[in-house]
């Protein structure tokens, strides 16, 4: 079996006695996946990413990248990995080209032409000889992405790659990542706050909250969340559920911080919600709310993390 691109087992990081930044995260990202790692600020995303890159030592558990145990000094491994960790930075006194040339040398790439190619790919041509200190946040982010992709990495680890980019830049990065995965065979492990982008891009999503991985969604689950459904709220949810089952529907409970609702995905429910209302009223449990909803990843994320907060 091919080794995973990323595999962690009970990965934890504790700072001092009080801060458990990452709490027993176990995940596996297969080759060719675009895995999105979602979480609120301080959820443990960046710490996890730093542990995957050997920048932070786990307190317990283990991490493997491209089939090798993560160590700070692993030249063969790191030559096959690209990364952008947190905010984009560059040497302010060096030009875009010089910054990339520094990265190229440190990556052990002898072909100097790779710098020009990556400058063109990231649309940095007109800024080639501009010092990094004069770049806008968006172009600094492009420079950081250019650096991360210089070595055509097998694994690209990105922490908020769309930070600072304008909408056109976000789309460009989306296309670049798609291209890297589809054509280049790379695996992408990324965190992002732009959930609409993640929804469009990711093949799998992991949601981390308070250091714990609380849910993973594969592409089927992601698609399912995007599909419309009829949400039903009622004062007596158990009675409403029983009435719907008796009526031939297949209600599914949806837990949220605000309470439990039922969801129906059958086309007949979506096409004629009034029939559902009539059925419930006839059963003596009229609905308090009936709405066709289409949960975005953002909605799902907020609901899930909200539930965790409430718990």
């Amino acid at each position, binding site marked *: 079996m091919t080794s995973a691109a990323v595999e962690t087992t009970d990965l934890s990081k504790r700072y001092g006695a009080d801060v458990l930044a990452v709490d027993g995260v176990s995940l596996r990202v297969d080759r060719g996946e675009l895995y999105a790692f979602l979480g609120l600020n301080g959820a443990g995303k960046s*710490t996890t990413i730093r542990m995957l890159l050997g920048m932070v030592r786990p307190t317990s558990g283990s991490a493997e990248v491209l089939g090798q145990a993560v160590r700070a000094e692993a*030249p063969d491994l790191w030559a096959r990995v690209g990364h952008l960790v947190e905010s984009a930075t560059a040497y302010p006194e060096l030009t875009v080209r010089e910054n990339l040339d520094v990265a190229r040398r440190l990556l052990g790439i002898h072909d100097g032409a790779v710098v020009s190619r990556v400058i063109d790919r990231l649309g940095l041509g007109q800024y080639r000889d501009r010092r990094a200190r004069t770049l806008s946040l968006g172009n600094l982010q492009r420079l950081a992405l250019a650096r991360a992709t210089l070595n055509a990495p097998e694994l690209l680890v990105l922490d908020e790659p769309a930070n600072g980019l304008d909408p056109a830049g976000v789309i460009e990065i989306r296309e670049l990542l798609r291209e890297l995965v589809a054509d280049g065979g790379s695996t992408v492990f990324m965190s992002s706050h732009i959930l609409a982008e993640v929804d469009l891009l990711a093949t799998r999503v992991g949601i981390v909250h308070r250091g714990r991985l609380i849910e993973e969604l594969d592409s089927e689950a992601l698609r399912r969340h995007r599909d419309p459904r009829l949400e039903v709220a009622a004062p007596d949810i158990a009675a409403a559920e029983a009435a719907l089952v008796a009526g031939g529907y297949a209600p599914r409970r949806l837990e949220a911080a605000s309470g439990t609702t039922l969801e129906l995905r059958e086309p007949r429910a979506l096409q004629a919600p009034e029939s559902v209302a009539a059925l419930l009223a006839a059963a003596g449990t009229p609905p308090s709310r009936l709405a066709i909803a289409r949960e975005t990843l953002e909605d799902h994320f907020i609901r899930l993390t909200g539930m965790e907060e409430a718990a």
Partner: protein
Amino acid sequence: MNGLRAALATEWLKARRSRVPWLVLAGFSLVPLVCGLFMVILRDPEGARRLGLLGAKAQLAAGTADWPTMLSMLAQAVAVGGAILFAFLTSWVFGREFADRTLRGLLAGPTSRGAIVVAKAIVVGAWGLAITAWIVVLGFGVGLVVGLPGWSGALAAASVRDIVAAALLTIALQPVTGLLASVGRGYIAGLAWAVLAIAIAQVLAVLGLGAAFPWAVPGLIAGAAGPEAAVPLASVGLVLLTGAVGLVLAVAWWRRADHTG
């Protein structure tokens, strides 16, 4: 050490393109110029007073206006000035990666962290030596322009030896500054230590214990305790050992610390 050549090339480019090493060079260039000014004042105190170079009641107790005084002053100034300015350079070379948050670009790559630390130390050393060579040349140039008496080839050779030895020993101690800049994740800790070390060195030199404190040894070699004060070889060994331990600890810290910046 994996990638040392690459690390050296990139560190050298960064140093060349930054203003900081050039500011250190410019700052250090004041040393021979000030020594030359003192020589002018010593040679003609009354003329200096008329020109406003010396206050009406001020006296200069530096000696006489000749080559031995000029070169001795230069050596001591290099020892003390080098302790500050080389530490400034080192704090920048190491600390800037934390202040500019560029450190993460140096980690998780095929170039080893040890190579990066060693390359930084080598670049500091190379810059330090280049600056020292420039100071020596400028010092002799200023002395010639001022027209100092008392020149001898033997004196010049001995002075150059003392200046270069003092500079080399100061440079040898810089890995400790680099370690402190790294652990302190910025410029301040290394610089603070440099200032504190000079103060401690002054006190210990006065107490006659300077030879036991590595940061006092460059000053002793430069003649700060008098031209006849011998510096034991063990003191030189202590300086080199301190620098080596500093380098090993700096490499170990870069390898083992949690890099969260």
